[in-house]
């Protein structure tokens, strides 16, 4: 890429923050944002010109955010108390950053806690259900069910909102 990196930060800073916040809490999300853009700045001159910048940044961001999440998971793992593990892994509240998709994020935030975590980790974070289960606790099957329930709930609430607007 040979465009000024400043433009990248301005255009995509909000999106990257949204991705980080979907997975991590406030200060941790901000650290992940910084790590994402620092890594992107490093790679920027060598990035092929035909790469979709937003998709690339989202990939970097979710990797950084999930790295952080895993790091935390390793630090506090009371195996006999899965609830405690889930507590450590509290996902950040999903604040709508403004711009588009605000209603979707509002809808995601309104999901029950476990559904929200699973939906974010699997659908946004790209983690397989087995790993999602490792992070939020419970079995693969339970994670898969929570994810399906979450998406179904989103289809109902978000779909209705969209239909109302049309």
């Amino acid at each position, binding site marked *: *890429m*040979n*465009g*000024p*990196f*400043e433009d990248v*930060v301005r255009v995509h*800073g*909000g999106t990257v*923050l949204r991705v980080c916040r979907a997975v991590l809490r406030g200060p941790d999300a*901000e650290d992940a*944002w*910084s790590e994402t*853009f*620092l890594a992107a*700045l*490093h790679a*920027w*001159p060598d990035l092929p010109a035909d790469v979709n910048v937003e998709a690339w940044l989202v990939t970097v961001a979710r990797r950084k955010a999930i790295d952080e999440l895993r790091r935390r998971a390793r630090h506090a793992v009371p195996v006999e108390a899965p609830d405690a593990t889930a507590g450590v892994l509290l996902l950040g509240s999903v*604040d*709508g*950053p*403004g711009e588009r998709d*605000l209603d979707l994020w509002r809808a995601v935030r309104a999901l029950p806690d476990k559904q929200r975590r699973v939906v974010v980790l699997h659908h946004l974070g790209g983690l397989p259900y087995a790993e999602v289960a490792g992070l939020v606790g419970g079995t693969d099957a339970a994670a898969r069910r929570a994810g399906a329930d979450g998406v179904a709930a989103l289809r109902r609430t978000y779909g209705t909102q969209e239909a109302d607007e049309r």
Partner: protein
Amino acid sequence: MSTGQDRHAETAHEAPADGLLQALHGRLVARAQDEGLLDVAYRVVDSPVGRVLVAASDSGVLRVAFEVQGHDAALEDLAVRVSPRVLEGGPRLDPVLRELEEYFAGRRTGFDVPLDLRLARGFRRDVVTTLPRIGYGTTASYTQVAAAVGRPAAVRAVGTACALNPVPLLVPCHRVVRSDGSSGRYAGGDEAKRTLLALERATAGALAPPAHGA
């Protein structure tokens, strides 16, 4: 204002982004500087000749661009010719911006911040390095500059070199005027050139030793 407290609270909750993103941006610039990734830092400031963009590498000022030249175009050019690792802000520009402020206030007659002249090559660079010999408050003709560079026939090329001077203001191409005494063209606009020459004349007059006739 009809927006009640609730509405305000909701707004603050829904859109935390702007102030936070600004803070994060500042942190990114600092980290980039620390890790040697800030190849080009720039800032845009107000001046008597319009908004001015100033960009610098680690070794010196690379570019001064007037608004009429297009700041976006200047940044694109820096990204291509120097490095796309371009970010706005950071303390790197503090010294040159301070000197420019003093210059516009009539408290400074020369600049001593380091320059990075990699954007000027060959003959154009020779011209750029010669121009600071034209003293504050004075002018020289394109013909005189051509002679000073050692290419007396290259009068038009001197004009081009002045127009493409990557660091106007700091390297005083505005002091190069037509042989008939009219100020001539300027990358920042003819009006800006007249403003700068008038500023320097006024300041140089005020600075002239009072003991002149004594």
